[in-house]
C-alpha cells in the first residue's frame, strides 16, 4: 500500500516512515507541512495519508484542514490524523458525514506497532480508526434518560470496540469470542439503542458515534 506522511518533527517523521516500511508499506512521501502533503496527494496515487494535526506554519489547524480537503478531493484515499490531544469536537468535524476511510488517533498509539499498522491498513481500505479516548468520552457522558444502562457489560465492550472502528472479526479476536457471538451482540445492541442496522462496518461507526453524541 502506498502512503504519505505529514509530520513536522523529524524524529517522529522518520520513525513513522521506518515503522511503516518495516510493516511492508510503500512510503511514497514524507512531508513537512500541509501544503506539501496536498501537492503529493494530487500527484501520487495514494492509499492513505498519515497527518499530524499541528503542522507549520501556525501549528493551529493546518493538519486538520488538509485532512478535510483530502477527504473532499480524494474520497478513495484514507486519512489518518494523529494528535497529541484528541478532542470530540475535532473528531466530529473530521468525520462530518462519513466515517469511511478516516482515522483519528492519539499520537501515542504509534508505539503499539501491530495495533497502529492495523489501523493504517483499515483506514487505507476504507474503514475507520477512532481513538478509544473519544469513545470513552462519549460513553461516560451523563444522560438524563440513559439507554446505555440497558446494555449488558459484554454488550458495552462490544459497543466500545465497534465505535473505534473495529470489524466484527477484530471484536471477536479482542474479546476472544466467536464471530457469530459478535454478530448476535451487535444486533442486540442496535435493537436496544433503537438504531437501524446498517450493513457496512464503517457506516455503523458514524451511526454509533452520532447516537452517543446526541
Amino acid at each position: 500500500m502506498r502512503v504519505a506522511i505529514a509530520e513536522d518533527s523529524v524524529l517522529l517523521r522518520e520513525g513513522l516512515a521506518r515503522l511503516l516500511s518495516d510493516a511492508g508499506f510503500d512510503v511514497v512521501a514524507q512531508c513537512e507541512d500541509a501544503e506539501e502533503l496536498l501537492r503529493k496527494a494530487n500527484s501520487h496515487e495514494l492509499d492513505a495519508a498519515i497527518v499530524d494535526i499541528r503542522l507549520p506554519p501556525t501549528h493551529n489547524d493546518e493538519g486538520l484542514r488538509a485532512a478535510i480537503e483530502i477527504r473532499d478531493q480524494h474520497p478513495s484515499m484514507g486519512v489518518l490524523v494523529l494528535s497529541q490531544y484528541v478532542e470530540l469536537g475535532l473528531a466530529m468535524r473530521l468525520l462530518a458525514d462519513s466515517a469511511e476511510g478516516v482515522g483519528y488517533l492519539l499520537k501515542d498509539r504509534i508505539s503499539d506497532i501491530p495495533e497502529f499498522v492495523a489501523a493504517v491498513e483499515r483506514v487505507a481500505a476504507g474503514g475507520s480508526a477512532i481513538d478509544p479516548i473519544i469513545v470513552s468520552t462519549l460513553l461516560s457522558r451523563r444522560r438524563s434518560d440513559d439507554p446505555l444502562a440497558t446494555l449488558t457489560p459484554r454488550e458495552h465492550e462490544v459497543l466500545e470496540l465497534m465505535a473505534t472502528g473495529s470489524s466484527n472479526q477484530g471484536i471477536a479476536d479482542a474479546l476472544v469470542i466467536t464471530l457469530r457471538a459478535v454478530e448476535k451482540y451487535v444486533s442486540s445492541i442496535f435493537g436496544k439503542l433503537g438504531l437501524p442496522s446498517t450493513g457496512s462496518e464503517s457506516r455503523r461507526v458514524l451511526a454509533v458515534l452520532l447516537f452517543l453524541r446526541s
Partner: protein
Amino acid sequence: MAASAAPRNIRLQGAPLAPWPRLLWAVGLAGLAAAIATFALALTSDHVPEQGLQAALVDWITVPYILGGLVAWWRRPDSRFGPLMIAAGFAMFVSTLQWASAPLPYTIGLAFDLLPVAVLIHVFLAFPSGRLERDTERAVVAAGYSVAAGLQLVKMLLGGVGTENLLAAAAAPTAANAVQDVQLVTLSALALTSFALLVARRRTSGRPLRRSVALLIDSFALGLVMIAALMLAGALELSAFETIRRITFVVIGIAPVAFLIALLDARLARSAVGDLVVELDADPAPTDLRDALSRALGDPSLTLAYWLPEFESWADFDGRAVELPTHDNGRATTLIDREGVHLAALVHNPSLGDEPERLDAVSAAAGIALENGRLHVDLRARLEELKGSRGRVIEAGQHERQRLERNLHDGAQQRLIALSLELGLLKERLVGQPDAMSRLDQARGEIALSLEELRDVARGIHPAVVSGHGLGVALESLAAQAPVPVRLAVDLDARVQERIEVAAYYVVSESLANVGKHAEASSVSVDVARANGSLVVEVVDDGVGGADSERGSGLRGLADRVEALGGRLRVWTPRGGGTRVRAEIPCA
C-alpha cells in the same frame, strides 16, 4: 478659519502684565498735545481751506483712536490691539503736519499722507488680538504699508507734490501722477479685499456674535468700504471727493466708539458668569463642566481638556488622552493656568477670541470646579492606566503560557512519543524473548503515563485546542466530559480574538467544574453567542444555588480575567434557585 497660532493663556492666580501706568499717562498727554497741535497747525496754515472743520475732522479720528487704544491697552494688556489703535491715531496726526508752512514738517506730513490708510486696514484686520493670524491678512497689510509709504517716497522723489517738498529730486509731474494713481487704486483694492476678509471671517465663524461685537465689526467693514470709495474717488479726481472724504472721516471715527461700547458690554457680559456660579454651586460633585461652560460662553462647539501633570498630557473627562488642536484646523485654544501650571484647556470657536473678558471671567468663576474636575480626571486616567496594565499583565501571562504549552508539545511530549516508538520497534525484534518483551511493555506503559500527565499539565497551562480550532470545538469536549448532562449551544459564525475565546473557555470550564462540585444539579445549559459587540457566555444549572465562598474564589479569578478584557462577569445564585453565570466580553 484659522485659529490663533499660540493658545491664549488665562492665569487664575498672579497679576497679568499690566502696562506701566506712567506710560499710559504719557501717551494720553501726547495724544492731547497732538489734538491741540492739529488745531494750531490748521489755524496757522496758509494752504488749508475751512481750517476749523478740517482740524475737527482729523481730531474726530485722532482722539477716539488714541483714547480707545489707551483703554484697550489698560484692559487687555495681553493684546496688541490697544497700541495698534494708538499708532493709528498718531499716524493721523503726523499726516496733518503737511498743513505746516515750514518745509521740514510739511515734507514729513506729506510722507505720512496715506499712511493712516494702511494703519487703519491693519487695525481692522488685527481685531481683537492685535495680531494678524493668517497669511492673506499679513500680505494685505504688508502691501498696504509698502504702497502707502514706499510709493509715497517715490512719488515725492519725482517731485509730484508741491514745491516745498524737500525730497523732490526731479520734476516729473506726469510720472508722479501715474504713481499716485497706482497708489490710490491699489489701496482701494486692498481696502475692499480686507472688507471681504472680514465678511468671510464672520460668515465662517459659525457662532453668533454678541450684538456689540457685531456692531464693532460692522463699523470696521463700513470704514473699509468708505476708504475704498475715497481712494477710488481720488484716483478718478471726482468732484465729490471732498464730500466723500468728510463722510469717510466720520465713519472711521465711529469705529473706536463702537470698540469702547463692546468693551463696556463685555464687562456687563460678566453677569452671564453669575448663572454659571449658581449652577456650579448647586452641584458640588465633580461633573463635566463642558456643558455649563459652553452655555456661559455661548459656544456649543466648546470642548474641555484637563491637564494631567503626571502623564504630561491632556485628557477628557473620562481620563482618555486627547490632543489639543494645532493652529490650522479651525479651532482656538485657551489655556487656563493656576500657580504657573496648566489646569485645563478650552478648545473653542476662534470667534470667542473677540470676547476675551468673557473667557477670563468664565474661567475664573469655574476655577475651583475645574480644579475638582482635574482631580477627578486624574483619578480616571490612573484607573484607565491600571486597567490597561492589568490587561497587559494577563495578556503577557497568556503569551507565556502559550509558549510553555508549545514548548512542551514540541519538546518533551514529542521526544517521549519518539522514545515510545523506538521501544515499539525494538519490541518487534525481541520475538522469542518474553521476559525482555514484558519489561519493554512496562517501560512503554510508564511512558504512556508520563505522556498522559504531561498532556494534563499542558492542557492546564493553555487550552491549545481553543487557539487551534476555536471555542465551539473546545467546548464540545468540555460538555461531553461534564459530570452532569449539558445542553451546549454555540452560535458563532466566525472565530473571535483568541484571548477572548480563552477567557470564555475558562468561564465555561470553571463553571462546569463548580456545578460538579457543589450544585447537585441534574442538568446544565451552556450558551455562547455574540450580542451587541460582545461575546456572551452563559452557564445555567438547576442545582441548589447559594454559591459559597470557596466557590466564589474560583469565580473571582474568572472575573479578573474577564474584567481585564473590559468585560463583566455576573453570578446569580439564589438559595434553592440554581446558579447562573454570565460573562460579557467586548469583541470587535
